[in-house]
């Protein structure tokens, strides 16, 4: 009973907040609606645009600028006496062995995950076409996209559960490995670099569905007469794909790869949930988190955030420009 009332209270509180927001807005709208003449338009614009601009300034613009400043300062940022340390935090990021390994490992993620997911998605999209029950198959592949990274991590952590040989196995991977005759497999998540690859599998599992849907759509949008003409010329199977289909969807493939790269670069949840960055699995976003919240070194954490930002800029720029072009084409 207590549980129910506290939950209801919480939801009511939220509804009050939303309702209050709407009420204030309605009142301001009513008030501004009285204004006519040359002030009508400016006032309407301020009222309409103001909330978004304030949220953006407070939540993104000012904090991002401040993070850049913080990245040139020492740790324990609260208070005015924090020393300016120049590029020391960046120097640390690129020379400290642990962090350097973290950056290299992030780069490995960045190459492997987008490539494997895109190829898997493309193969699936090509083969599933014309198949019976393809809706079911596509839904199964696409389903992980809706699952949270935490949920996905738990699902796969269970697959990777290890028990000493001889005990009844509960992890699917161990069971299969042993049934196939690998009598003493390693403790999957503790052995580097295997553990990093096993975590990449999780992200591939999630992103393949996305790649499949987007590239499947592109493949379908190739006009039938183009395919027809190519077939008349004797192209089929691999050759048809290589010389007709692939070139025609190449820009979509680029968008897919870049989009997955962006997601991969920011990956935090998987590593944080599965190993917490231990056992040589740390990646950039997780290292940033642990610098800030475990080492309480805001300077270093901020420097890592800026590095992440600089790495993301070219990727996101290309993909949003593509998206824009596509929309307005």
């Amino acid at each position: 009973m207590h549980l129910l009332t506290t939950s209801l209270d919480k939801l009511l509180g939220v509804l009050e907040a939303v309702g209050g927001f709407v009420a204030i807005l309605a009142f301001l709208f009513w008030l501004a609606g009285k204004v006519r003449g040359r002030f009508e338009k400016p006032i309407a614009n301020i009222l309409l645009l103001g909330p978004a601009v304030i949220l953006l300034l407070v939540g993104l613009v000012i904090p991002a600028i401040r993070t850049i400043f913080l990245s040139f300062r020492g740790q324990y940022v609260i208070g005015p006496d924090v020393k300016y340390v120049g590029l020391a935090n960046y120097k640390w990021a690129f020379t400290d062995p642990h962090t350097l390994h973290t950056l290299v490992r992030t780069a490995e993620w960045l190459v492997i995950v987008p490539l494997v997911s895109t190829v898997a998605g493309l193969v699936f999209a090509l083969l599933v076409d014309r198949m019976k029950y393809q809706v079911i198959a596509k839904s199964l592949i696409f389903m992980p996209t809706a699952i949270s990274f935490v949920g996905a991590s738990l699902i796969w952590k269970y697959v990777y559960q290890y028990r000493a040989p001889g005990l009844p196995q509960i992890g699917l991977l161990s069971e299969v490995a042993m049934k196939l005759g690998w009598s003493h497999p390693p403790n999957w998540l503790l052995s580097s670099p295997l553990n990093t690859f096993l975590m990449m599998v999780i992200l591939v599992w999630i992103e393949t569905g996305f790649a499949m849907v987007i590239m499947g759509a592109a493949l379908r949008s190739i006009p039938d007469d183009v395919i027809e003409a190519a077939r008349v010329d004797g192209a089929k199977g691999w050759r048809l794909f290589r010389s007709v289909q692939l070139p025609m969807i190449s820009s979509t493939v680029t968008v897919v790869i870049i989009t997955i790269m962006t997601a991969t670069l920011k990956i935090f949840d998987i590593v944080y949930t599965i190993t917490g960055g231990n056992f040589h699995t740390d990646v950039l976003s997780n290292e940033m988190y642990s610098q800030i919240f475990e080492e309480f070194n805001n300077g270093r954490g901020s420097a890592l955030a800026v590095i992440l930002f600089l790495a993301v800029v070219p990727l996101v720029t290309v993909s949003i420009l593509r998206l824009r072009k596509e929309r307005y084409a």
Partner: protein
Amino acid sequence: MSVDEALVTETGETPEPAGVTPPSHRAPAKTHQRLATVVIVVMSVLWALPVFGFFVTSLRSKAEAEGSGWWTVFVHPSLTFSNYISVLFHGGANIQGGGLFPYAMNSLAIAIPATIIPIIVASMAAYSLSWVRFKSADTVYFIIFGLQVVPLQMSLVPLLQLYSHGAHIGGFPIFPNLNLHGSIAEVWISHTMFSMPLAVFLLYNFIAQLPNELIEAARVDGANFLYIYRRVVMPLSLPAIASFAIFQFLWVWNDLLIGLTFSAKSASAQPLTVQLQQLSGTFGSHLELLTAGGFVTIIIPMIVFFSLQRYFVRGLLAGSVKG
């Protein structure tokens, strides 16, 4: 065909009738077709198996879940629903307080305002930038659009300081300490702020292309700008709003980083994902609770996903650069 339209046909409920495909499309040799089928089936099974095993385990007793692999259930079937009751209402393992249910409520209490408020704020901004307009409207739009490149990781530390200390310039408070730290509001306000660039971008694309005649006609009838927003723009934008709402709801529901950072380990503000992450340390000792808890978080996105797939795909495509 635009990507949008293509996606709708791709994920629409109606599978293409076989007759639509020109005959030559079905030409490849039988063996190729068979090989393709094998690849598809193997891949689908591989993709589904981890989820299936996880689900089966959530229906087994503690002793069974820890004593044998889930695949043995086919030989000795014995299933129970009690794990869900325990994990939702009684807790155990690492769950603070009485089970996951309060945390599920937290997740809802975060996701609802973090979905509704961005829709209102962003659609207002999009309407202002596209229809009411002012001299530098295009520049403002381009800046907001460009802010999509800023990863939210750039904002974490300064925002956290703002929430817990307010803002001062030379000792003079310019932003009060709202005592938000560790509250639900802190989490959903953060989500709202981070969602802005994407929300404005998505809704602008749609609202800017509404038919000119409708808005002009309302203007001629003497309606003011704000009235037009409420009575013409909002109702007509519902398809775009639906796409964004689904994407945003799932994003917030599935988020770990923002929840972890801004709930400040306070049980009254933590979303489900944060609790679940902490549960992952109990692997081996409470597998049956862990799997049930995991499924509780998955089930809502699954329902949304399977019932609203086409909107979800559109939002996903446009929002894939977020984070």
